[in-house]
């Protein structure tokens, strides 16, 4: 078991003929991900990755021809939100958007469509998802992961790798690791991922990594207190981030002020999450939690 993706996931890569798309599609194939199709409008009928992957003009066509059920997006920012909508309208069950720099207004619209269509979106501006030894749907280095029973959810890319590396150092492997992205508007939230991990029998504990800004970690902590039976180790980046480098008055009013690292660490602790003050403690704390 694992969450969101596994060895049966049939992946279509949107933007496969671009340099990012080609590079990461190759890496994903090497990891063992089943990439069944690529999409680049105007290049339908060609093939990519040394002839290994057929290219289609649209996601709909790719789905009809290959039964793809999952999409990963590497298209440039001005077209990324539309790529999400296209994947959702074509009936993809899961869409992962790696692209960084998508305008917020575009994402607001895309989010509405995926909610209507009941599509699960991860990202944008995220490293993607990896289910160890089964499916890598993203840009993370696969070799740092090892099979195990810890779930990882994070807003940040390289901080996810750091956590995985530390888990490895104390002999802990992962079920699935997910970077949900740190943009103002994202598809899958921390609560969504916690719920998936709670329902996954293989996952015994969860590492949750957040950062300053927004309320998502706080909401997740409150949800976890009421609904989670598995131990959670939390870390919030940005304790030393300069104040005032956030959006002006209006932003502060919306968040109610609980969006600093200090406030989030307090709220996580109050809700029974073991919070690491130092990022270097994540591995050890998880080990202790699992032994209890």
């Amino acid at each position, binding site marked *: 078991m694992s969450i969101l993706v596994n060895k049966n996931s049939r992946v279509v890569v949107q933007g496969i003929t671009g340099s990012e798309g080609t*590079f*990461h599609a190759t890496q994903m194939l090497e990891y063992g991900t089943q990439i069944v199709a690529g999409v680049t409008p105007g290049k339908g009928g060609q093939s990519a990755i040394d002839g290994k992957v057929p290219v289609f003009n649209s996601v709909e066509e790719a789905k009809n021809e290959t039964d793809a059920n999952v999409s990963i997006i590497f298209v440039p920012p001005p077209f990324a939100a539309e790529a999400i909508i296209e994947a959702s309208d074509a009936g993809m069950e899961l869409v992962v958007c790696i692209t960084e720099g998508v305008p917020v207004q575009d994402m607001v619209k895309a989010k509405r469509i995926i909610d209507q269509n009941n599509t699960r979106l991860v990202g944008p501006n995220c490293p993607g998802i990896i289910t160890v030894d089964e499916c890598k749907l993203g*840009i993370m280095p696969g070799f*740092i992961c090892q099979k195990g029973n810890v779930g990882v959810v994070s807003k940040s890319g390289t901080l996810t790798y750091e956590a995985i590396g530390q888990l490895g150092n104390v002999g802990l492997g992962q079920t699935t690791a997910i970077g949900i992205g740190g943009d103002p*508007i994202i598809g899958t939230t921390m609560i969504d991922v916690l719920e998936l991990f709670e329902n996954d029998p293989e996952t015994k504990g969860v590492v949750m990594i957040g*950062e*300053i800004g927004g309320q998502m970690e706080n909401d997740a902590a409150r949800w976890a207190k009421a609904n989670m039976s598995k131990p959670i180790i939390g870390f919030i980046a940005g304790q030393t981030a300069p104040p005032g480098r956030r959006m*002006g008055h209006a932003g502060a009013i919306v968040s109610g002020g609980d969006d600093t*690292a200090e406030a989030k660490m307090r709220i996580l602790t109050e809700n029974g999450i073991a919070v690491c003050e130092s990022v270097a403690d994540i591995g050890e704390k998880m080990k202790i939690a699992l032994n209890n």
Partner: protein
Amino acid sequence: MKIHEFQGKNLFKSYGIPIQDGYVIEHIDEAADTISKVQKEFNSKAVLVKAQIHAGGRGKGGGVKYSPTAEEALANVKNILGMNLVTHQTGTEGQKVRKVYITEAFDIKNEYYCAITLDRAKTKDVFMVSTEGGVEIEKVAAETPEKIIKVWIDPLVGMKSYQARKLAFGLELTGVAFKTAVKVFMNLYQCYQGTDASLVEINPLILSEDGRIIALDSKFNFDDNALYRHPDIAKLRDKNEEDPTEVKASEFDLNYIKLDGNVGCMVNGAGLAMATMDIIKLAGGDPANFLDVGGAASAGSVKNGFKIILSDANVKAILINIFGGIVRCDRVANGVIQAVKELGLKVPVVVRLEGTNAKEAKTILSESEFAIIPADDMKDAAQKVVNAALKD
């Protein structure tokens, strides 16, 4: 991206929002003519002299002066233009005033607060108004939240007039002023959406003694990711208002924020960069900066990052923390050596490389002719760099 008050007001004007109008000058010799032009054109004997800097708190800092006569206005321009304006947002060093906005003056009956931004949790825009304009709105929000009236707008549907009416009723407006306010609110939402703003704020929006609704100030934050479709707005960027090192970093495509400490750090990825700053603090040091060289750090970006960090004279030691995923650590190590060769090893450099080819990278660094300090993990790296910074 932020812009000046006068630029924001010009945007308001183009969206049909009535403003307190005026002209901007950059040289003192334009002052007398401009003052009399404002007096005549807007039929206002008294004028306001307003320093144009991006930071807030200009009035309290002495950068906004009501001037009943042309003589007083001229004296105020002389004082403000070129002054170093210190507000609670500029830091102690202040910000040099390069532009002064001379505007018409109004007799104010009421002051209101008015803002639109995104409510992330609801995935809708929130439009807020309050009768408590002109003062610290954060205080109002904390102490008397009922005095802030909010409506949530679905960006796909746009603002509906009943929502604008709710806001105007909330401000207890009546008659012509009510009708004008409804129109102003509708237009302001158009402006917010049309410019891809992430925040637009009017504080204060006023009801004048003669019954008009007027924007006395403007504040915008724009979504940097959407600027590509607004070349006219991108042109309004004023690099004088930004830290020169941060401007330089942005030219290198690096994300850099200068801080007050003396431990420089260079990291790939924003989250890991913040976590690195945090662990430096925990180890007893003070981070000199936030620097994210991008998830996929390259030899080139490492070299540029080095240049940026070294341009800060406070830096006593540097920590390079790269988690190599797709990027290979041996390449980063070579980039570090290349940078040191070119720029010199002026301060101790601690390097922690983890991930792909980390072992090879360590060998490259230890066999180099430079005394680069290798570190095993983040804790070790933080301790070593703080020790190095304290030694000096």
